[in-house]
């Protein structure tokens, strides 16, 4: 069934408008066969609307959606042959677990023995054997989630769409289900498009992440690239925690540029600099990329700072420190022994390569 493009989903210039309000604006991306792609963004960013347009629950106002090369933009949902797992599971409350899973097979007029086997097999895959006769309300949230998954898998869809399927579970279960889901997806080589607002879920499960904001795509990249090289302030801020400095490029040397931030702070920033001297840039720095030292050592960036606040997270400590110019900075450290106290002065060491630069559009390049 694979068409020549090798694309399971192609979303091309898709828009969704409600009156004058634009929920999704000119969104384009692909999902390849066997790939796990996440749509990640804050609530209201249009990720769920995009997923629902692919499933056919919402009609696109503009653009095209192709599934395995076939244009499905105007097809009703029942003609699209995609699996869908809902955030609230959407199990039919008047049907047993087995009836829920069998419903789609019955609609396809498969014979009884086939349906029975398929239901058994799907429930076995999701670890629910023995629950056939239960009603949805007699199951826990995690079990209901598995039934929803079994119901989708029973139809052997070429494509699985999931709308925040784990967000109603408590944290421990969510993490366990995340791993299980990913393993299952890999075993079945199931093309999956997964909507989530949880960056941890998106980073840990996906082959690629599509980040959305305000109805538009901000970035499409592998999880590692998204985190390490956010390329925009929104991505940097939404995925993980980031320190920002607004500065002016003052000098570009051999693989290292100098950025002046305010009156007192000068940063030595590593490679991949496209900005010309004098241009306004925003410098991004992940808190865990800063080393915190008790004494001054040699280094490209060695900054004195005063500890203002300390939060203990278990595996890590987060310091809020103030630089002499008044800039506040988050620093995350694993070493909790001999840690600094509030009010003490410490030294921060930052490798030039750990900074990321982005343009500050419209800022004066004085």
């Amino acid at each position, binding site marked *: 069934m694979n068409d020549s493009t090798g694309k399971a989903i192609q979303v091309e210039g898709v828009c969704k408008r409600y009156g004058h309000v634009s929920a999704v604006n000119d969104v384009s991306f692909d999902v390849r066969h066997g790939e796990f792609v996440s749509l990640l963004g804050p609530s209201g960013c249009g990720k769920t609307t995009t997923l629902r347009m692919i*499933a*056919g*629950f919402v009609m696109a106002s503009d653009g095209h959606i192709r599934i395995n090369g076939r244009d499905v933009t105007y097809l*009703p*949902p*029942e003609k*699209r*042959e*995609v*699996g*869908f797992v*809902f955030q*609230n599971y*959407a*199990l*039919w*409350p*008047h049907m047993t677990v087995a009836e829920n899973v069998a*419903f*789609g097979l019955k*609609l*396809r007029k498969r014979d009884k023995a086939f349906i029975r086997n398929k239901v058994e097999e799907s429930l076995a895959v999701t670890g629910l054997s023995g629950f056939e006769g239960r*009603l949805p*309300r*007699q199951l826990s949230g995690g079990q209901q989630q598995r039934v929803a998954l079994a*119901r*989708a898998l029973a*139809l052997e869809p070429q494509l699985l769409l999931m709308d925040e399927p784990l967000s109603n579970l408590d944290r421990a279960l969510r993490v366990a289900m995340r791993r299980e889901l990913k393993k299952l997806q890999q075993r079945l080589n199931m093309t999956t498009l997964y909507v989530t607002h949880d960056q941890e879920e998106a980073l840990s499960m996906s082959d690629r992440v599509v980040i959305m904001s305000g109805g538009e795509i901000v970035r499409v990249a592998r999880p590692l690239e998204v985190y390490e090289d956010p390329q925009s302030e929104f991505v940097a801020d939404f995925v993980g925690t980031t320190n920002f400095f607004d500065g002016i490029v003052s000098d570009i040397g051999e693989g290292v540029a100098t950025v002046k931030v305010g009156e007192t702070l000068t940063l030595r920033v590593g490679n991949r600099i496209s900005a010309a001297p004098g241009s306004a840039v925003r410098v991004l720095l992940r808190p865990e990329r800063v080393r915190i030292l008790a004494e001054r050592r040699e280094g490209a960036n060695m900054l004195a700072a005063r500890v203002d606040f300390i939060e203990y997270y278990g595996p890590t400590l987060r310091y809020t420190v103030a630089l002499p110019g008044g800039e506040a900075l988050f620093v995350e450290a694993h070493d909790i022994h001999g840690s600094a106290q509030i009010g003490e002065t410490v030294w921060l060491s930052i490798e030039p390569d750990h900074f990321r630069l982005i343009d500050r559009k419209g800022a004066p390049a004085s």
Partner: protein
Amino acid sequence: MKARNAALLLAPAALALTIFVILPLMWVVRTSFNHTVDGAYMVSAFTFENYTRFLGSGWYLVNTLWFSIRVAILTTAISVLLGYPVALYIAGTRGVQRNVLMTMVLSPLLIGLVTLVYGWIVIFRGGGLLNSLMIALRVYDEPVRYMWDLKGVVILLVYIGMPYIVLSLLDSIERINPSFVEAARNVGASRWRAFWSITFPLTMPGLYAGLVIVFTLNFSAFAVPLMVGATDTQMIGLVIYREALLNNDLPFASSLSVIMIAANATILLGMSFLFGKLILNRLEAKR
């Protein structure tokens, strides 16, 4: 002490129920065994003659009890057939449109019954608006007898029963999570199939509540058959009224009341069993 304080909350209602329902009902049951002398006054007795007079008479059984059941079934069924699509439609509206529609649906409950019936008479009587219009449009030539006929009774009972059906169905429809229907569409169900397999079964609690109310009201209807009925629309409520207030035969009226209540209870029990078996037992919280 908490339980006792809570029980106190029920006291006023329990008192009212005892005075206005339970005691009169006991009195009715007792009276139904009394004897009427020369169709004029009642003497205390313990006789089944009032029951045998009704149950032993084929005419009463067919023209009153069975007739009332048939009218109640017919009018309830028509109310459901008309009310279900209305409830579905209203569930999809909001704002001003919804308020206008709700007001229209509820209007029979907002206007007094007598005003309402006389309004309908103006429209449906021999030379009324409907007949004039139909004759003018040449749909038919002779005026059709709507009022003072079974047609009028059915039309009015349907009209008055509709709001209860629509309201109770609307409540059920709006409880249905929209993703239930989407999930059905997703696994291959057409709009039509999703309705019959998902939406319809899930509205059974509302349909059942509406059926119970409307069937009971229509089975025991008295004002509507009195005002627009004819000699051949002897619904049981009307017969009770006539025996009690016109013929002054309280024992016979009482026995009819007991039979009416028993028949209604039997039918409702049957309905409860049927609906329970079909679907409600699955939907009810049972842990």
